[in-house]
């Protein structure tokens, strides 16, 4: 039963190839079929795999060896052999990720049939989506760091393609470049991390690396804590980039220039969580390095808080969601930092559902509003597009952490976990952020769907989206409600813990002893309270206008400006890195032309000049020539005698 793992990525890959080759010429407006079929097959297989994996014991996994990718050979003088195989491996963590990726992927592809209808690049879109699904599946199926890195880059590439999908638009191009470039900053670290892994362990394979830890990283082992910490931090650099953590979060909001299904799939549900996946996957390493985990936790909570604050003031519907994504990724990240790996993955999963849902919902709104994205030009849309509105409401409730919905369970576990692991400040900040989340989400909801329309009702006639778009919304709304309760009850001991516990056996979190149910209860009540509080405040401000958000904005103008400018990250980066690099590059070029090449031309000039001088020796006068002969003779003897060093004895001795 080992040999069908490859089908999961192969199906979307085949879809990509078919669409690429025949999409334009043959398939045309039916170009979505290969993608749907491919993703469908992948989804089915992912479920099959899931059930198969469920039957496995802890530490076991499905393996599928495809071929050797690289092998620099074994040598007598070099004990470390560099060998990387294309190996697929599905353990419990992977199985869960497969489900998330394939199901959200399939739904988004179906949704896109309606959303992208009539677009000039229709086939292109349905070529790149399965390519992304393929890459993402390979990413989670990789059994080693290098392969993971490869597909890490590949999903980044797909993101680049899809963000810049409308390549005529300058803003889309810029956003695509920014996404790729910022990600590459993180990849510098990740790349070095893979190298350090290899030089330390002699292998990239997860199981081999982790298997060595016990013997070699313990007391008396040859691997120091510093090395482990370095590996963790380098790997985490990659995660910071890919999962849009501070300070590399700046690309994600801009990436909203891509078509909305892309935002839903790549920039909410799957790709951006790859960083979380990477850290969770490397839990044995992080377990050994409290220092690295502290960094992760601090970055995470900072991201969560920062994203939420910026989300408070955005006008663009997708940008609010984008900053919300940043913020939620921050949650997952600090969960990892405090050692709550399973809750992090749990939140990853629920977030994929409800954030995917909301992005698709926002797409439906944009679609219905004829490409209007400004929240302040919407209002009262619930009447025209009820399915969108209600499903969106479900998503908003879920993310806000209202008791019972998916987000509540996962987020609560994270906060409890942070508190429990001895990070009370982080737990409190988490709660504050939760309140902010509830507020800005419902601000969005009220501005878009409730109240009176603020758009030009003469020309804009919002309408509900077609079934290909609404069905996926419903399909995502259901898990957004139930999945948390289904797998997350009881907290810390739910089905997800039992399942993932076989792959992630971190006793770090659990070592503090079983979480007292009173703590769980307390935080449950607290987070419900802050969620309801946030929602109520949003209701008061945007439905009742008391306090009036506009006057409030004027009064706290400095704060508003600060948030509106997104803490000035982009501005500072622009000056520091963009302009700085360009200036440095120009300086280098000038150096190249005037100094390096100048030296070359300088030598030529010197030879030329001296040639011009020396040729004048040839005066044309015979007497001078004869003189040259005579003087030359004297000169040569002189040089000769001086060289011999005995000029005086030669002449007078």
């Amino acid at each position, binding site marked *: 039963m080992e040999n069908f793992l490859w089908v999961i990525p192969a199906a979307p890959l085949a879809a990509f190839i078919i669409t690429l080759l025949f999409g334009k010429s043959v398939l045309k407006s039916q170009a979505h079929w290969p993608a749907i079929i491919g993703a469908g097959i992948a989804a089915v297989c992912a479920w099959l795999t899931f059930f198969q994996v469920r039957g496995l014991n802890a530490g076991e996994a499905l393996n599928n060896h495809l071929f050797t990718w690289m092998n620099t050979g074994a040598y007598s003088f070099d004990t470390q052999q560099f060998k990387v195989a294309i190996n697929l491996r599905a353990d419990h963590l992977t199985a869960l990720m497969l489900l998330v990726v394939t199901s959200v992927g399939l739904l988004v592809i179906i949704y896109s049939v309606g959303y992208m209808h009539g677009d000039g690049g229709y086939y292109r879109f349905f070529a790149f989506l399965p390519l992304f699904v393929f890459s993402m599946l390979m990413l989670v199926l990789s059994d080693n760091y290098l392969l993971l890195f490869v597909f890490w880059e590949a999903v980044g590439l797909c993101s680049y393609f899809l963000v810049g999908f409308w390549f005529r638009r300058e803003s889309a191009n810029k956003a695509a470049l920014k996404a790729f470039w910022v990600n590459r900053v993180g990849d510098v670290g990740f790349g070095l991390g893979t190298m350090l892994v290899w030089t330390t362990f002699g292998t990239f394979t997860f199981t081999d690396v982790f298997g060595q830890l016990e013997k070699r990283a313990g007391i008396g082992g040859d691997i120091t804590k510093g090395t482990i910490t370095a590996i963790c931090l380098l790997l985490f650099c990659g995660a910071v980039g890919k999962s849009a953590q501070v300070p590399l979060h700046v690309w994600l909001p801009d990436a909203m220039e891509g078509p909305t299904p892309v935002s839903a799939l790549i920039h909410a549900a799957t790709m951006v969580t790859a960083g979380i996946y990477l850290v969770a996957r490397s839990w044995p390493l992080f377990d050994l390095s409290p220092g690295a985990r502290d960094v992760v936790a601090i970055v995470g909570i900072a991201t969560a808080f920062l994203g939420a604050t910026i989300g408070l003031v955005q006008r663009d519907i997708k940008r609010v969601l984008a900053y919300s994504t940043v913020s939620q990724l921050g949650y997952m990240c600090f969960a990892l930092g405090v050692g709550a790996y399973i809750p992090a993955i749990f939140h990853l999963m629920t977030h994929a559902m409800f954030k995917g849902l909301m992005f698709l919902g926002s797409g439906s709104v944009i679609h219905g509003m004829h490409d209007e994205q400004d929240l302040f030009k919407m209002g009262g849309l619930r009447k025209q597009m009820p399915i969108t509105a209600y499903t969106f409401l479900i998503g908003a409730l879920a993310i806000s952490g209202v008791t019972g919905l998916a987000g509540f369970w996962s987020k609560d576990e994270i906060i409890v976990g942070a508190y429990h692991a001895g990070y009370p400040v982080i737990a409190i900040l988490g709660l504050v952020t939760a309140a902010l989340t509830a507020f800005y989400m419902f601000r969005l909801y009220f501005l878009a769907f409730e109240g009176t329309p603020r758009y030009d009702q003469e020309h804009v006639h919002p309408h509900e989206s077609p079934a290909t778009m609404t069905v996926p919304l419903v399909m995502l709304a259901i898990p957004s409600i139930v999945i948390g309760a289904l797998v997350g009850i009881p907290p810390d001991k739910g089905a997800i813990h039992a399942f993932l516990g076989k792959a992630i056996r971190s006793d770090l979190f659990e070592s503090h002893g079983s979480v007292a149910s009173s703590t769980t209860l307390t935080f449950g009540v607290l987070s419900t309270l802050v969620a309801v509080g946030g929602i109520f405040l949003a209701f008061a401000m945007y439905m009742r206008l008391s306090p009036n958000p506009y006057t409030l904005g004027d009064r706290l103008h400095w704060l508003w400006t600060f948030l509106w400018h997104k803490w000035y990250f982009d501005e500072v980066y622009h000056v520091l890195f963009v302009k700085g690099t360009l200036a440095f590059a120009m300086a280098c070029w000038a150096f190249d032309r005037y100094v390096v090449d100048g030296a070359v031309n300088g030598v030529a000039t010197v030879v*030329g000049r001296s040639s011009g001088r*020396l040729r004048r020796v040839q005066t044309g006068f015979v007497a001078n*020539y004869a003189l040259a002969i005579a003087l030359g003779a004297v000169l040569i*003897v002189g040089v000769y005698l001086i060289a011999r060093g005995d000029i005086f004895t*030669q002449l007078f001795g």
Partner: protein
Amino acid sequence: MPDVSFPPIHYVTVVPHLIVTGLAVVLLLMDAVSRRSRAARVGQIASLVSVIGYGAALVSLLFTYDHRQVTGGGSIRYDYMAIFFLIVMLSTALLTVLVSANFVQLQSMSLLEYLVILSFSVLGMMVVAIAGDLIMVFIGIELTSIAVYVLTGFSRQSRISHEGALKYFLLGSFATGILIYGMAWTFGIAGTINLDAIRTAGASIATGNPSLLLALLLLVVGLGFKIAAVPFHMWTPDAYHGAPTPVTAFMSVGPKAAGFAAMLRVLVNGWTPAADQWVPLVIVLSVITMTFGNIVAVAQNNVKRMLAYSSIAHTGYMLVGLASYQVGASKMDFNGRAIGALLFYTFAYAFTNIGAFSILTWMQARGRGTNIESFRGLATTAPGAAIAMTIFMASLMGVPPLLGFFAKYYIIVAAINANLTWLAVIVALNSAVSAYFYLRVVAVMYFREPDRQIVPQRTSWLGLGLAVSSLGTVLFGVFSGPVFDLARKVLL
């Protein structure tokens, strides 16, 4: 007159000389009997006769090869060095005839007279090649030089030809004076003019003897003039530039070879024991010669003049071979290779440089100047000539596998053998500099648009000369082994 007796001569050793002498006589007779009205026709026949004569002399070497010996009371040294130089000189003569025949007539000069003088000059060179004593060296050198003075001023219409000749002549006789003064001192110190005897006598002369140094200095200066070593080169650019181009071709190779032959005879065969004294002189000379020649050549816009300076530079390279001479009996093989490298260089230079000048001749025969601009777009208007010129330039540059490259290669080998790696590096750097001006010619031929068409002209002799020299440059390069094998026996 009791003790006057003529030392016996084995005439087999001078067969080539006799043939060339015969050639000169035949040519003189033709001049005497032929009518002026049929000069053109007679000139053609005379060319053919010359070619046959020089060819026969070359072939005769094959038969006299085994009769190497010292004869004529030590006046004649018929050894490997002689044979090799004879090959170079006769090849030079042959090529020169081919290159000159059409051109001289086109310039309405008397071809027959020209060939007569040429044959005297060649004979002089050949005498140097077999010289066994200083008189032979002197006679040979002077015979060559005097004939070449005439050839330089051969173009009666050209003022620069006369000017070149005058300068060459004045300085040449000045240098002759210095040379024979050196010979006189040699005679005075060693008590003999026979080279072998000088070698024997020299062994007992204390090193550092000021008279010896004086003699060596005077010899080196006098011979340095003949080979155009800096700073005794000053006549070269002017004489080369002024002379009719085929003559320049000849004099850049022939008398230079003769000069080197003389130098080798006097210094290597004669003053062997004083090698530790003259080697430093030669080293200094070689460095300044090649460097000066190359650097000044960079700024030349007239290709003929550029080649004149390049010829100076090549003298410098050749001198490296002599400079690599090592003192000591155990060094015979190395010395053979070092001097052999010099010999090989003269051989290589003969083919390549005469080839390069024959292109100039070819151009002038078609109404073009020798300025670099005249070469514009030659690759388009006359691709064959351009390819040939490219071969010659590349060979002069030292691009493998052409003849010039091997010449430089053996020189570098010699220098490094003699622990003169720094000198080898200087050779290399000089080659890099020289690449610039050779390349410039190639660049102009290939990279510039032609400004005018070539005037068509029938020059079959010249064509043959070009073919021979370019093929020689390539083939003797690729198969340089046998040639070098012969050259490296020079000291045996």
